[in-house]
């Protein structure tokens, strides 16, 4: 079974300002990028279901020149607010690694 974590050259999460969180999924070759694109495994719906969000909260982008996919969501807790656990938003991507790619 191949996962997104096996195919991507980089999967990362980061704050996009203190109020949003953004995920970048990048590839180092066109073949892997197109394989993931064609598999349909990555979409706004998929991100919404993994992070248990309404789909309208997810902005999803395919960025061919960067061989990348990107998704942005509102932070459930704003950066630095009392119950925030990841000030830079850097460790929120791990569940994306498990996505199976056909």
């Amino acid at each position, binding site marked *: 079974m191949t996962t997104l974590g096996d195919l991507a050259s980089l999967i990362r999460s980061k704050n996009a300002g203190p109020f949003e969180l953004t995920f970048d999924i990048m590839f180092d070759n066109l073949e892997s990028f197109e394989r993931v694109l064609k598999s349909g495994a990555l979409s706004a719906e998929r991100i919404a279901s993994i992070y248990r969000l309404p789909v309208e909260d997810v902005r999803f982008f395919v960025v061919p020149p*960067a061989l990348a996919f990107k998704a*942005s969501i509102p932070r459930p*807790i*704003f950066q630095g607010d*009392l119950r925030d656990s*990841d000030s830079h938003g850097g460790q*929120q991507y791990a569940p994306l690694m498990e996505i199976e790619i056909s």
Partner: protein
Amino acid sequence: MLETKQPLEPAVADPARSGLEVRVVSATGVCGSGFKESSIAAGMARRPHFIGCDAGSTDPGPAPLGTGTPAFPGRAVKRDLRLMLKAARQAGVPLLVGSAGTAGGEPHLALVRDIVLEIAQEEGLRFRLALIHAEQDKVYLKNRLRQGRIRPLKPAPEFDEGVIDRAERIVGMMGEEPFLRALDQGADVVIAGRASDCAIFAGLPIRMGVPPGLAWHAAKLLECGSAIAVSRPSPDSILVTFGDGYFDVEALDPEVRCTPQSVAAHALYENADPFRLIESSGTLDLTQASYEALDARRVRVRGSRFEPAATYTVKLEGAERVGYQSIVIGSVRDPFIIRQIDNWSERLEEKLRGRVADVFDAETAANYVFNLRIYGKDGTMGPLEPVRSVTSHELCLVLEVTAPTQEVATTIVSMARHQALHLPIPEWSGLITGVACIYSPAYLERGAVYRFCVNHVVEPDDPYEMFPIDMLEVGA
């Protein structure tokens, strides 16, 4: 070293004399994070029209803005500024620094001003220094709010006059216009408070005739320094060269490569939307941008566009003190406790509530926040964690109390520690000690804690009214 045997000819700040080419050096991604002396020297050998450097971010959270302190140590900022100042003064070109001291408020700007004055004295430099203020007057903000000229971005916290009163500090994020005005007033060196990272770099090339789309796209790359490279060994300097209908970008360390993919990918970093980047004066549109390898380490970019905004807006950033915090770090190894950790947590919180009511008056008892972080369960991702079952053989606990004073926070967290230590579970009879504490005393006082209290934009009358400029003759 920066010293060259033959002084460089001053770069020409007039496109008619320099042809169409406009060259810009970015010293590094954040002033204080460092760069190689050899890289900025290589950049100066290309005779840039100016040097720019971003010095701030909300990345370190609300504390720098709230406390008035920088995220990077003064010594590291001084090292970087010294090299930039010497390079800029030797070449006779402007140095533009934005978001001084991380958060770009008054104390941050004053701190960086003092560093600049120290360097000037130590190096015997003479120049005209512009300081651009970005911390906002509360009366001004209240007026704009009443006029309906402050509106929320999405998502945004509640923002009203009470928030303005309570805020420790609110800054506006300036556009390119105050930088240009400072240069028009004769500034050689501009140290600005909070500024759009890209505005530092976009204004001057546009004035020199570069199309705004290319200028803003290049600015977005310049503001992060060598982060645009394939792999960045350390923060470092980069160069952008604008030509007719394109710009070229390269890292100034000859060992560092940029590729079309690495440059295109940079538009993703720390942005919610990789195709549209919103600035005060308009929106950078990258949907038609194309990237072409010039050679193994340089990239040519074309096709970036800029749509002017119908209404000029200035983004606000503010920090409000939430209280004072004390924490206790401990851990649990008993599988009986681990398998009932949710129930255990609820009972702990309830017991604590009872003890606080015994010890404090009703007002204090209603004004503390207890937060139990459980590492090994969902300590990292909290509400976003999809894994709901705990499989770890040990858990790390952070007991955290935030209260109106440090003394109350420490008292309550100490009570929480005692309750947690001996909280009974049905599997054992008799007194247990269910948490391993690391330190003695067990608590750590974290001091004041802050929150970001605004994600709104102001509609000013013009791009300058929120950003007054002071001029100083340095070394005169």
